[in-house]
C-alpha cells in the first residue's frame, strides 16, 4: 500500500540475457510531473512501459492507486489502461488509415462511446492542442509536430489520471518540441493529471517537477546538496 498514484517496487525485467531492470523502484505522486532520464539502454523506457502496464515485470510489483496492477483481471487491466492511462510514444503511432479526429476518437469508440459524442470530444481536444487544422488529414499528410499533437490529444481524450510519455518530443526540433511539450504539460497541470515522461532532452527534464536518473537498470540516488 502506498500514497503514490503509481509505483514500481523492486521491478525486474529482462529481454533474453539482457537485464533491463534490476530491482528498480519509483513512486510517483498524484499530480506530479516526473522526468526519467539516463543513458541509452539504461532501462528507462522499459520502466515506463512496466509502470503503464504494457510490459509485465518478471519480479517486483506495479501498484496503481493502492491496488496491485497484476492482481486485477485481464479485463480490469485493459479497462484501466484505456480509461485512466494515456500513452504517448516518440513517433505518435497514429493509425495511418484514420484521420486526425478519428485517431483521437479511437479510445472512446473502443470504450463504446457514442460516435457523435466521441467526434465532438476529439475535435475539442484537437483545438485545445492547436491541431484542429489536421482533424481531417491523414497522418501521412501531417508534420512531425502535428502528428505528435494528435497523439497527445488521443492520450488525453479519455481524461486519464496518469500520462506516460516516452520521448514525446524526441523526433521534433527545439521550437516544435517546446510547443508540443508545453501543450502536454499545461493540459496535465490544468486537469491535475500525473505525468511520467522518459527523455534524453535536458530541456524536457527541466520542465518536470522532478528528475529521476536511471543507470544500468537502477535508479541513481538523488544527489544530496551539501
Amino acid at each position, binding site marked *: 500500500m502506498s500514497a503514490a498514484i503509481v509505483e514500481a517496487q523492486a521491478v525486474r525485467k529482462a529481454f533474453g540475457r539482457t537485464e533491463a531492470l534490476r530491482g528498480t523502484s519509483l513512486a510517483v505522486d498524484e499530480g506530479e510531473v516526473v522526468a526519467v532520464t539516463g*543513458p541509452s539502454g539504461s532501462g528507462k523506457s522499459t520502466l515506463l512501459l512496466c509502470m503503464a502496464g504494457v510490459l509485465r515485470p518478471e519480479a517486483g510489483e506495479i501498484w496503481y492507486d493502492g491496488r496491485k496492477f497484476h492482481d486485477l483481471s485481464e479485463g480490469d487491466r485493459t479497462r484501466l489502461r484505456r480509461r485512466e492511462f494515456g500513452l504517448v510514444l516518440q513517433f505518435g503511432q497514429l493509425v495511418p488509415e484514420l484521420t486526425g479526429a478519428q485517431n483521437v476518437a479511437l479510445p472512446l469508440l473502443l470504450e463504446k462511446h457514442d460516435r457523435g459524442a466521441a467526434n465532438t470530444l476529439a475535435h475539442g481536444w484537437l483545438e485545445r492542442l492547436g491541431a484542429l487544422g489536421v482533424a481531417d488529414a491523414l497522418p501521412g499528410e501531417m508534420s512531425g509536430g502535428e502528428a505528435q499533437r494528435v497523439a497527445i490529444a488521443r492520450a488525453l481524450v479519455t481524461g486519464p489520471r496518469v500520462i506516460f510519455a516516452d520521448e514525446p518530443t524526441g523526433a521534433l526540433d*527545439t521550437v516544435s518540441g*517546446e510547443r508540443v511539450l*508545453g501543450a502536454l504539460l499545461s493540459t496535465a497541470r490544468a486537469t491535475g493529471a500525473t505525468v511520467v515522461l522518459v527523455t534524453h532532452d*535536458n*530541456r524536457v*527534464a*527541466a*520542465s518536470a517537477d522532478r*528528475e529521476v*536518473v536511471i*543507470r544500468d537498470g537502477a535508479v*541513481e540516488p*538523488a*544527489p*544530496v*546538496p*551539501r
Partner: protein
Amino acid sequence: MSIGHVLLGVLAAGPAHGYDLKREHDSRFPSAKPLAYGQVYSTLSRLERDGLVEVAETSQDAGPERTTFALTSAGETSLAAWLDEPEPAGPYAADDLVRKTVTSLHLGADAGDFLRRQRAVHLARMRELVALQGKTADTDEQIAVDHTISHLDADLRWLDTAAARVAARGKVLS
C-alpha cells in the same frame, strides 16, 4: 582561482618545482592553453602569501636556484572545499568544470558524486530558465534565454558523458 586549486591538486601528490607543476598541468589538460611560467610563479607566490603552500626546499645545482613547494594543511582544506563545491551554473570560465573533475579523478575522489551534484545545480538553473521561457512571448527575450539554455545544455551533456566515462572506468578497475 581555479588555476591555484589545480596547482594545489598537483601538490597533493607531493612537493614539486614550478616547472613540474606547469608540465603536469599541461599534461592533465591537453586541450587547454598551456600555462605560462610567469603565471605559475605568480600563482605560487599568491598561494604562499595565503598560507596554502610553503617552500619545502631551495636547491642550486649547476643552474639557477630551484624552489620546491609543498601543500600546507590550510592548502589541503582549501583544495578539499573547492573539490566538494559544485560550480554555479554559469556564467563562468568554460574550463572550471573540467579542471575540478580531472583534479578529483587524479586524487581518487568520487568524481561521480561530484558530477551528480553538479548536474542537479545545472538542471535547477535550467528549470528556472525554461519556466522563464514559458512565461515570455517576447521573441528577443526568448532568443537571449535560448542562448543561455543551449550553453547549459552543452554542459549537461558533457556532465552526462563524463559520468558515463567515470562509471565505465569504475567497472574496468573493479
